[in-house]
Structure formats: structure tokens, C-alpha cells
């Protein structure tokens, strides 16, 4: 039976797409997408869907604007803080829940339920608790990103081969030593998979938080462009986010595969 972890869209990838993507095919794909986009522009009109070139030019203007570094820094700061909190707290909670079978069984359905609810509806609650500003954004990023990290770490710890833990006991390692030298290395590939999903969702959460709870940042620029139907800006920012998300995801995927191959050969 596929558990949530096996079947999560983001994780299923590295299992099935084992061979690295040939560069030529990737280039062809990008060209194909650009052609589709251009065709869409012709069909829908410039106002609705700006052409790839217009969007690139717009993106260059936005990035070149003197306000942009401030916005980008604001988003980056909130995102990085949220990411660090989600990863560290998620890792700690996952290790603790994975180490004790009963507490894991108690927590798992609750966590899976939380994973599948539309967390955007919690935004008023977060705002009421944290007020407008960067802490609300960070909290929003964390609640999006932390659950997959917990679930993956927990399952990774659970699936560690019992013989490892028995040897740890035979060597009389302390709890901290066992965690550092046995559990984390053995569970690392799954933990990195969890980090990958956590990364993507934290970014999404931070941006959504920014769209409502902020006067600065890329999410704020997006929502302002949406309100004024400034589709060129929307497309330019969306392109920026897609490229950033794809590149970081590809880097983490590469790390993930390396760790898995390493785990298989050692």
C-alpha cells in the first residue's frame, strides 16, 4: 500500500525518473514551451498573455528597479527564516515521533489531516495572532512547510533497520550519539526528500502570506499587479518564481539522488 510518503507527487519523481535528463531534450522542451506561450499570446492577445519577449523585458525592468532589492530581500529574509524553522523543528519533531512507535501512531493521522486542509483559510487566524508584518509571513511559511518534513523524518526513522539500533545499544551509545551517528545518517535520503517538499511549500506559504500580510516583498508586488490587472508584471514575477523554484528543486533533487545512490552502494 503506498503511504503518503511513497505517493507524494514530489517524491515519486526521483524514484521513477532515475536517469538524468539529457540536456538536448531539456532544451527542446524549453523551446517547445516558449513556442506554446507565443502561440497563446497570438490567440489571447497581448493584453491577456504578454509574449515571452515582453515578459523578459518587463522582468529586466523590474529587477533593474531600485526598489527591487528591498522587496527581494524582504521575501528572502522571511523565506529563509521560515525554512530554517520548518526544517529544524520538523526534523526534531520527526525524530522524536519516529523514535517512539506509539507517539508516531497517535500523531500521524492528525498530521496527514493537517497536510490536506486548505491552510490558506488559517491566514486570518495567523494575522490575528501575529499581527501584520514579517512574523505573520514566517508563521505562514512554517505551517505550510513543516508537516511534510515531520512526516518524512518520522517514517524514515521508523524504517531504519533494527540491526543498526541493536548495534547502537550493544555499543552503549547515548541517545544523542545514537541520533547523530546512527539515525540521522541512516534516514538521510528520506529526510532530504522531506526537505525538498518542505522547501517548495515554505516558499508557497511565505509568498501567500506576503500577498495579504505585507506592504513589501515579491508576494506584495504580485498581488498589487493582480489588482491592477498588470498582466506583464504578473507573468514576469511568475516566471521569476518558476525559474527559482525549478532551479532549487533541481539542485535538491540532484543531492537527493546522490545520497540515495550512496546509500545503495555503501
Amino acid at each position, binding site marked *: 500500500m503506498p503511504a503518503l510518503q511513497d505517493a507524494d507527487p514530489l517524491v515519486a*519523481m526521483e524514484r521513477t*525518473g532515475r536517469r538524468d*535528463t539529457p540536456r538536448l531534450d531539456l532544451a527542446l522542451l524549453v523551446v517547445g514551451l516558449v513556442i506554446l506561450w507565443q502561440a497563446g499570446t497570438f490567440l489571447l492577445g497581448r493584453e491577456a498573455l504578454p509574449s515571452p519577449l515582453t515578459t523578459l523585458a518587463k522582468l529586466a525592468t523590474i529587477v533593474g528597479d531600485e526598489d527591487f532589492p528591498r522587496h527581494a530581500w524582504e521575501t528572502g529574509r522571511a523565506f529563509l527564516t521560515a525554512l530554517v524553522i520548518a526544517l529544524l523543528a520538523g526534523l526534531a519533531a520527526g525524530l522524536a515521533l519516529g523514535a517512539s512507535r506509539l507517539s508516531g501512531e497517535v500523531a500521524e493521522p492528525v498530521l496527514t489531516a493537517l497536510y*490536506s486542509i486548505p491552510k490558506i483559510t488559517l491566514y486570518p487566524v495567523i494575522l490575528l495572532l501575529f499581527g501584520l508584518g514579517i512574523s505573520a509571513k514566517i508563521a505562514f511559511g512554517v505551517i505550510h512547510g513543516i508537516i511534510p518534513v515531520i512526516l518524512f523524518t518520522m517514517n524514515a526513522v521508523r524504517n531504519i533497520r533494527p540491526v543498526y539500533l541493536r548495534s547502537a545499544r550493544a555499543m552503549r551509545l547515548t541517545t544523542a550519539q545514537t541520533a547523530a551517528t546512527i539515525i540521522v545518517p541512516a534516514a538521510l535520503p528520506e529526510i532530504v526528500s522531506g526537505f525538498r517538499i518542505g522547501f517548495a511549500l515554505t516558499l508557497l506559504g511565505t509568498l501567500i502570506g506576503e500577498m495579504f500580510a505585507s506592504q513589501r516583498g515579491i508576494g506584495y508586488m504580485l498581488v498589487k499587479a493582480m489588482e491592477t490587472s498588470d498582466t506583464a508584471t504578473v507573468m514576469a514575477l*511568475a516566471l521569476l*518564481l518558476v525559474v527559482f523554484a525549478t532551479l532549487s528543486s533541481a539542485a535538491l533533487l540532484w543531492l537527493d539522488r546522490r545520497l540515495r545512490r550512496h546509500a545503495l552502494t555503501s
Partner: protein
Amino acid sequence: MTRAGWIRLFLIAAALCLLEAACRLGYVSRDAVIPPTVMLQGTWRAIASEEIRADVLLTLQNVLLSLGLSLVAGTAGGLLLHRTPRLRRALDPLLASYYAVPTFVFYPLFIVLFGLNRWPLVAIGFLFAVVAVIINTLDGLARIPRALVRTAAVMRLTRAQYFVHIILPAAAPWLFTGAKFAVAYSFIGVIAGEFVVSGAGMGHAIAFAYNSFDNRMMYGLIVLLFVLVGGINTLLWTWERRLYARLAGR
């Protein structure tokens, strides 16, 4: 119920009681969080209001539409990609980073495309759900045991027979998981869209209650939504477990 189940129930009940007590005793500001019992009153008020019932119905219809579309298109897309491994390999990194992009930024585009009606929201839900279905379909197809494929070849099954007797049963667990994700993601997409940009539906009702400082209605609606989504998910999980039990028993 299992021991873990009882403990879970007890912990949730205890947490709710604690929250109730903290709110009643004034440890938490009433402007931020209201006691759970008051939230339930809000839920009751929401259910009793005809306007809200219409919103809920609209949201459910949109979710159902986006779910149906994403299941059909996702399965078809998965089958197609499975047969063109080259395209599929090229698409891999894009699929893997897909969920980091806030899909609803494309809402203005959809309005131009479909007009100001329910279809832009359905499109957001669809975009959110379809990739999960594609990925799970691909995963299921990749895991069909080779022995079954060979048996099918020996028996000279036609393409349709192969699909019905081999692919569907062998990939069923993954297809089902895809469907489960599609339900959750359709809800997330549609509600998020309603929340941000639309003028009707449950997501909009919550945002509206928040903007008019109607905390009771807002929390009531959030509770209602969570019960709705949680209930549907639990139903699917139970159904899935029964299905596996039956398959394993054969």
C-alpha cells in the same frame, strides 16, 4: 478503536478543553481566538444561513468539477507520458518543482480566458490537482509487475483487454492515491482562489467575515470547512483500506 486511537482522541479533547479554558479565563485575547464552543455556535449560524449554504454548495460544485477534470486529464496525461519516455524525462524537473509556484497568480489570465464566472476557479483547482494525478499514474504504471505484462503478451490480450485486466488492477493503489491527492488539492486550489480573488464561495465567505471583524462567523466557517474536508478524506482513507483488504484477501 486501537490504543493509539484512544490516546489521540483524548489528546485532541484535552487540547480543545485547554483552549476553551485559556479563552474563558482571558489568557488569550478574545479578539484573536474565541473559545471552541463559541466557534461551534458560529458553525451552527453558518449552516442555518441560506446565503452560506449557497456558498458551500458553490464551492463543492467547483471542487467536484475540478476533481473530475483533473482525474480524467491526469490519467490520460500519465498514460501518454508513460508511452513517450523521452518527453517524460525532459518534463521530470518541471513536474518536481511544480508545486512551489503559486498557481493562482494566473487567475487574471483565466478571467480573460473564461470570463467572470466559476471556470477560472475550477481552472485553478484543476491546475493544482492534475499534476498529482499525472505523477501518481506514472508511478503506478512504472510498477506493473513484468510477469503480468508478459502473461498478457502470452495470452495475446487486445489493447482494451490489457488496459482493463492488467493496467487498472495493478496500478489501482497508485491511481487511488492520486485521486486522494486530487481531492485535497482541488479543495486547496478552489478555496485559495475564492479566498484571494473571487466574490463567492466558502473561501470568500471566510475572508469576508474576517474583513468585517465577525470572528464568530469566521471561526465557525473554518471549523465547518475543516470538518468537511477532514470527513471526505477520512471516508476515502477508510474506503481505500477496505479495498486493499479485499484485494489482499483474494
